[in-house]
């Protein structure tokens, strides 16, 4: 996929529907949670249609279970494709993980072992999904709390193999890199420096809960200073990448999230990255 820079966005949350429609805030794009709109009608679809008219959207899912050893869930993919036709998203994404086994859904983003068997399995499934959806997809690195003995390489080596062999792109979650680095004791900057610069299409920024001995990816806090620093480092490596704030719990008033998004924009601007949404042009260094 040719890298497209959308600028700076936010995750669309139901609490903010009315504010957004009434104020038309200066947000370059929004990310919707695909599963929230896999319903027949009512308020969710009404607000979705209103957002489609106003902003560029990308679709982000949590249920593809691309790494599962269950059969691909074609009912889910069918729903996803139907939603894509309605939304006409800039791109779609999910997670580099598995969520279900024996058709039981954990509703969690469970980590994969980083080895050749998983790479072969994942690459085959990503290709099937991309063929069915008739477009390349983005997959996000997840936060993790354990390392399997079956892993034979670093997470970034694993991600590079997957993107190179499947043609998918990365949604790099800077907070998840930080969370996993703390939980597994690796250097977060080494992760970023190890990722193929051509594979990254989008950034997520989010908050977490720090318990000292470990960190949980809760998405219920502001982005912390360490993650902002890591974001600046990622901009140095990857250049102009579409960036958004992802907040899922303890959701503040919209202006507060907008301020956080503008903080990301200010960091990028300092590095010579800007986005002119009148001309849809992009500037920056990669």
């Amino acid at each position, binding site marked *: 996929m040719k890298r497209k820079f959308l600028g700076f966005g936010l995750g669309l949350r139901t609490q903010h529907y009315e504010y957004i429609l009434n104020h038309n805030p200066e947000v370059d794009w929004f990310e919707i949670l695909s599963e929230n709109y896999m319903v027949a009608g009512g308020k969710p679809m009404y607000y979705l249609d209103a957002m489609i008219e106003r902003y560029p959207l990308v679709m982000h899912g949590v*249920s593809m279970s691309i790494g599962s050893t269950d059969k691909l869930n074609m*009912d889910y993919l069918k729903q996803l494709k139907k939603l894509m036709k309605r939304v006409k998203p800039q791109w779609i994404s999910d997670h580099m993980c*598995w969520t279900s086994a024996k058709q039981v859904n*954990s509703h969690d983003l469970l980590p994969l072992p980083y080895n050749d*068997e998983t790479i072969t399995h994942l690459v085959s499934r990503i290709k099937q999904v991309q063929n069915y959806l008739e477009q390349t997809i983005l997959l996000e690195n997840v936060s993790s709390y354990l390392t399997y003995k079956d892993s034979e390489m670093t997470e970034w080596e694993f991600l590079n193999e997957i993107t190179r062999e499947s043609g998918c792109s990365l949604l790099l979650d800077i907070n998840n890199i930080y969370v996993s680095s703390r939980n597994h004791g690796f250097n977060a900057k080494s992760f970023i420096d190890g990722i193929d610069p051509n594979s990254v299409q989008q950034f997520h920024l989010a908050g977490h809960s720090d318990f000292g001995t470990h960190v949980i990816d809760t998405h219920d806090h502001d982005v912390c200073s360490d993650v902002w620093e890591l974001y600046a480092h990622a901009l140095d490596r990857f250049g102009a990448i579409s960036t958004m704030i992802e907040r899922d719990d303890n959701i503040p008033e919209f202006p507060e999230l907008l301020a956080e998004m503008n903080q990301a924009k200010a960091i990028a601007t300092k590095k010579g990255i800007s986005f002119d949404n009148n001309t849809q042009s992009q500037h920056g260094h990669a």
Partner: protein
Amino acid sequence: MLKDLQHRFLAQILGDKEQNFQQKIVKQGEISNDFRLQIYSNAYHSRLRECIETDHEVLGIYLGDDWFEQMVRGYIQKNPSNYTSLRHFADKLPEYLRLNEPFSDHPLIHELALFERTLLAAFDAKDTTAANREDLIALPPDRWPGLIMKLHPSARIMTTRYNTIEIWQALKMHIAGQDVDIPHAIETVETDWLIWRNQDRLTEFKSLNQAEHSLVSTLLAEQPFAEVCQLMATYYPPADLEVQILDHIYDLLDKQLIEFG
């Protein structure tokens, strides 16, 4: 190997301690492998608990903390999710409450859960283009007998045998911060309710008398208008029949609950 790893890990998350999955994990840092697995197990239970709490806010208040936790634990154990979306995870909760003690000893609890799920189903049911009074009047008379008036996809009928709706309304007011007495559960005469989503995309409900219940049931079964009239003739004398039928139909049309098939 990957398949085995996933099956064992998920079984461990769901509570099967026999898996000894700790042995599959690298020892790192200051926290134990047990603790690392517990993070996933806690996340699984708290996510599903939160889903039930969000979908069944009123039920949660009615049950109180202890019974709510007991219900959550029991339901999660009996009903591992087969859904891709959490939207449907608690679909079987009313049935669980009907069949499992101590909840089954209090049938109102089942009705309360069923009412909240019916509201949810109406909330995001399919959109349609509703007909209005003018559309009906504009129809040529020869089309009326065979006309099928479909009810809006959000429309549903529910029957209560307790003062469930009264208690639900009082608890909603309580949640909104109003000082209100919560009625005691009492068995009442069977009452039928129509539940639907209105034109402002908000859910509504109203009790139905026998004639209305028959009418709505017939429309839900997509019977032609001639059948509807025949059925209504069992409730109203011939002199009032036409006016009564039109009153009912106009009421449903004004609520934007009818489309012409």
